[in-house]
């Protein structure tokens, strides 16, 4: 008998929630504060102690109360200072510009590999609410694995997920009537095309089935909605939790607004507070619903920000891109809580101990989600490709973030 665990054995994370902080959040004002560094590094702001003992930034009071539910990586590092190359690396694990093919992002990899164990009618890969756009998220895997990009505003009265939630207030009866007529009407559209009919039938089931309900946030209690914060981001995380309950294997939230080149401290305080409320609500909600063990949550951006604030115009107290040492949050789904991986120096200018590469970071998420990062990646070209290009032999390094495995 094989000793390898299978995806369906239940020992792996069933769902993954990715919170992608597009633009690159600052490590200092999140999970790697340096209150004793010079003023130009921290603007005089302090840190607070979490319930797990380690320190995070004072802008995150709610996350400080539930640090037993998540762990922090403080030493992610890579050499790419431009958004697109850094995003590509941090999403696919592959160094950009070397091979003439475009690799799929983590969400497409995990959802495509878990597809066979998923019976839902919503696509196994959902993006709230806009695609990353700078590169194709499915890469060479092809359109079949493309994510559902919801569009719409989860904080609006009706979260209109284009295509799934019926517009114009149509009743189920009216919708069914339409489909019946459409069937008759289209019956004579010759020549027949089986793929067209099949796709139509499946689409109809989604519209008239449970899928649309999943996006109906009005089914949540008022207190629950308030707990996540009545913000675009907060309600996105609530929608993500509902998608986890539905069974969707991979949910990605593209969370814009972290590219704080100018007036960093003035612009980042509010979004950081929003994030603090929503992420802490998500983690505690998942825990209360007994879903945290089976749901892996990770949050990071493509890089961090330059530790020393640039006071000169046009930046006026801004921070530029900084890939050399930055942070991430991981929780649930096989990661333990309350731990810190890696140590940065006194300013976060450099990694002091235990550098973590993007491929190692993504490889660990794959492994905990039941996708062997050293396995092969099925592809339409039929070439032999690794799930993650983990370094081998003498350069293998740690390979995974085993220190954070539960």
């Amino acid at each position, binding site marked *: 008998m094989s000793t390898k665990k299978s995806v369906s054995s239940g020992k792996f994370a069933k769902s993954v929630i990715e919170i992608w902080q597009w633009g690159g959040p600052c490590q200092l004002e999140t999970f790697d504060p340096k209150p004793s560094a010079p003023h130009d590094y921290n603007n005089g702001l302090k840190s607070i102690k979490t319930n797990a003992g380690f320190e995070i930034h004072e802008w995150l009071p709610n996350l400080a109360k539930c640090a037993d539910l998540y762990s922090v990586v403080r030493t992610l590092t890579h050499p790419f200072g431009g958004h*697109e190359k850094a995003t590509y690396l941090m999403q696919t694990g592959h160094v950009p510009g070397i091979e003439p093919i475009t690799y799929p992002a983590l969400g497409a990899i995990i959802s495509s590999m878990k597809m066979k164990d998923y019976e839902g009618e919503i696509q196994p890969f959902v993006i709230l609410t806009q695609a990353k756009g700078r590169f194709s998220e499915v890469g060479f895997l092809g359109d079949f694995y493309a994510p559902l990009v919801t569009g719409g505003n989860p904080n609006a009265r009706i979260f209109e997920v284009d*295509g799934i939630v019926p517009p114009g207030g149509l009743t189920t009866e009216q919708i069914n009537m339409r489909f019946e*007529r459409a069937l008759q009407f289209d019956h004579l559209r010759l020549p027949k095309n089986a793929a067209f009919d099949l796709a139509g039938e499946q689409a109809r089931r989604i519209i008239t089935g449970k899928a649309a309900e999943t996006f109906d946030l009005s089914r949540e209690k008022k207190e629950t909605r308030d707990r996540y914060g009545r913000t675009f981001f907060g309600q996105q995380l609530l929608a993500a939790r509902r998608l986890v309950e539905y069974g969707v294997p991979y949910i990605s939230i593209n969370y814009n607004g972290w590219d704080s080149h100018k007036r960093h401290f003035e612009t980042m305080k509010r979004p950081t507070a929003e994030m603090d409320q929503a992420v802490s609500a998500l983690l505690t909600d998942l825990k209360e619903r007994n879903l945290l063990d089976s749901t892996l949550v990770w949050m990071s951006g493509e890089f961090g920000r330059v530790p020393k604030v640039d006071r000169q115009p046009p930046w006026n107290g801004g921070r530029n891109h900084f890939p050399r040492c930055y942070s991430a949050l991981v929780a649930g789904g096989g990661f333990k809580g309350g731990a810190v991986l890696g140590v940065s120096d006194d300013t976060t200018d450099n990694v002091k101990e235990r550098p973590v590469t993007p491929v190692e970071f993504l490889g660990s998420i794959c492994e905990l989600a039941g996708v062997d990062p050293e396995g092969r990646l099925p592809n339409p070209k039929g070439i032999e490709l690794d799930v993650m290009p983990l370094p081998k032999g003498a350069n293998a390094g740690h390979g995974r973030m085993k220190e954070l495995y539960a």
Partner: protein
Amino acid sequence: MTIDRREFICGTTAFALLGSVSAASRNTIKAVYENGNRASDFLACRRLYLDICGRIPTPQEVRDYLANKRGSKYEDLIDNLLASEDFADYWSMRYCDILRVKSEFPINLWPNAVYVYHRRIRRSIADDEPWIDFARSLLCARGSNFRVPETNYMRATASKSPVGLSETASMTFLMNPTDKYAKYFSRVGFKPTKEWKEEIVYLKDGPADLVPEAFMNELEGPLRAEFNATQPKRVLYWIFNEMPRPMALSDATSVFVRNGYRLKPLLKHIFKSSAYRAGPIRGKFPARRLDAEVLDDALCSITGAKRDFTSIAPEPFSFLPPERKSILVEDGSITNAFMLNFGRPARDSGALEERKNDITVKQRLYLYNSSKLWHDMSRMATDKAFAAKPHAVQVDELYMKFLSRSPVKDELAIIDPNGKGDIRNIAWHLMNSFEFLYRI
């Protein structure tokens, strides 16, 4: 001008029957789409507009065509459309797919270069420049990518190493990526200038015979047979939606070469062929789902909706005028959710397969149920001039706009049984029909 109703009125109940269409009824249905084994007039006209101009004909254009009594009207239409601006717009979109015109990752042409390169490609199509001359100008260009548009060919690749350039060039001109010709690109160098994102393509020192010109000479010499067949193969694929059989390919190749490697004579030859003029039923003409851009343009022109293209990357942000046709969006990096959903190619590799014309659940979901489309159709239905017309005229107009024909009586029995149905519902049925979504 009135439409020739004989084309469409069948006078049977065939359209109302489900699953058990009698042989007699089937023949009447066929008469809508076929005339003998050939596509019927409205269908032939619609096909030519879709394949040459990348758009559905306007109701007036269809009426003009049907009213035209000249024996040569089909050939005349081909000539007229091939001379139109729309032709250059649509076919430059196809060429930009294979030449990887996009500003961002992994190609990184950057916006200025995208626009000069696109303009150069469009001129090549409009002037019907011989492919062999175009190929040479792309491979042998040197200088600034802003001033010499052709230099962007060499820049438009994910890997600018000799191996990467060899794979790209053999992909473009032979449809067979290989590193075999890396030596011919070993001297190609790229250097920046003080102008933002300007780049000079130049030759580094080295042996005189290891230059891209030598690769071009191989294309014209030992690789000639493959080179000659490459572009005809693509053209046939684009039109028939499948890789051509050897016979069809050798026929098209000889026409192409005999006509000095020009696209238009080849297209004329194809459009006049019996394979292309075959009806969709007996003739088994292959259906093709409309390209993402073509479908978007069709929906926007029918409902009057504005297009939505912005690009936040790279800075400075790009905004396109809302009336810009989707087929004319030069930059493959400027996109939107509709384009992604309907399979517009990423333009990463230049492979034909990057463009997806198959139908997916997500696409049908969108068309069935999109709130945007519903709002667009609501706006169309409440448009003052439109709302003032009698119901039957409105329905006829919708049919002409969506399907390029008038309704058949028995279709209306299904989707407009009492003759006063919600116009948005009727539009919904037409928009979701195979006949609209495919070039049949």
